[in-house]
């Protein structure tokens, strides 16, 4: 099994007033996906990132700078991530395509590179 990082990109927009039932229905979809992944022992880690966009640092010595995160101004942010186990990219895609997030944003899938002797 390999390990894959899923980055959940979303577009920040003025959220309309979803009704409590609509919010519940969306959560139920995500939760069904997450729980089925967990049951199959595919989840290594997961987390929501804070909304403010974080910090970006670059340069060293004299030119070292701290900037507001890459997403501070843009409309698109990474809302959170999952680290999952999968056989290969096809499998990782198969695991991710049922994630309800694809209805609201897009998912970047990256394999974590482990060099073995």
């Amino acid at each position, binding site marked *: 099994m390999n390990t894959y990082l899923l980055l959940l990109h979303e577009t920040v927009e003025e959220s309309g007033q*979803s009704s409590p039932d609509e919010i519940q229905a969306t959560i139920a979809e995500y939760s069904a996906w997450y*729980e089925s992944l967990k049951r199959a022992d595919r989840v290594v880690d997961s987390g929501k990132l804070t909304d403010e966009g974080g910090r970006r640092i670059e340069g060293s010595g004299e030119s070292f700078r701290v900037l507001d995160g890459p997403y501070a101004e843009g409309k698109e942010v990474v809302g959170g991530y999952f680290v999952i186990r999968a056989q290969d990219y096809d499998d990782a895609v198969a695991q991710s395509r049922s994630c309800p997030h694809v209805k609201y944003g897009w998912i970047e899938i990256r394999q974590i590179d482990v060099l073995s002797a």
Partner: protein
Amino acid sequence: MSSPPEAPASDVHALAEHVFRHHAGRLHAVLLRIFGTSALEWIEDVVQDTFVQALRHWPYRGVPDSPEAWLTQVAKRRALDRLRRGHCSQSKQAELTALTHALLGESWELEAPTFTAEINDHVLRLIFGCCSATLSRDSQVAVTLRLVGGRSIEEIARAFLVTPSAMARRVQRAKNQIRASGPMDIPGPDDLATQRTAVLEVIYLMFNEGHSPTQGGLVSDRDLCAESLRLARLVADHETVGSPDADALVALICFVLARLDARHSGIDTLQEQDRRSWDPGLIRLGVKYLGRSARGTVISSYHLQAEIASCHTLAKTWEDTDWQRILDRYDALYRLDGSPVVWIHRCVALAEVLGAASALKALKHLAPEERLRNYVPYLMVQADLLRRLERRSEAHEAYARAEKLSSNAAVQEFCQRKQLTLADAH
């Protein structure tokens, strides 16, 4: 949309049905209890923000062990942030903060004590506030659905067939009036009966609308019916607020709701329904509350309607139904409120006791024929009686007219079906 994979219940922190909607009502109620009616300005925003937080957090970690405790703590934090930003005196702030902690608890894991026993009192205060005498019935229903029922303005607007902005204005006006009428509370002994009557009527109207929507394609709005049952039980089960007529309303809702799923595929008459598909749990609950409702001395319209509904629901077959008893109760009900709908239903029972000819004759007593020619329930019953008297073309005409006049797609479909049967038999 593909459905999510089936999961064994034990593994999943499943969300109880409508937990957000119901919890919205509870949070509104407790926040209003703490901050007073001036908080009507902002409590909905706090609750909405709280739900959006859940929407943003839960997908990554799953649903917390106690979703309601989680939501409560987030809402509490938001309310306290607001309080700090506001312009309250230091001492007032400290007092409200302490009250907030006391009523909303500290735990993210377990339910705060408030959410077991006392919560019902807070919600009842809110219900009485929403049914304040200064509001029209329509506004009472709308604002109850919004604040107690946790429905969105859009959802309420759909039920009332008005635009969301018109409904938003109506609810805002209602909230202003509630604020103006002072603190919300469970009425004292002097006003309790009058105000409870208003509350029960609002619940009854919600139930009627849920059970037979005036418009749209739905045969029934099960959610709205279930919501009315929930609220009616809140009133009926309360130590000081409960009353025999509240028990009777609960019984009535149970008996009708028990049969609701059986007619979900479209409108069919009681005669055609598969009685095995009726909900035995709701029937038992109805019997229990009907028994409890007998403790008083006053027979309310809810008592009579519940008894009629129980006769229908408890009868093993259509033929087995105690029509004489139903007819007696309709007579009593007509004496009580004299409404044409009651008279029409009375005629249905009369047809079973004395035959279709007598019933048709009685039906015509209701009002001059010209006025009734535009009344769908009248036309439906008239059509059925004419059919039973083999007056096929007149029956056909009455169904055709009802179909044209009704704005409910399920009623229209039923009328079309009947017309086809009548035409076939020619």
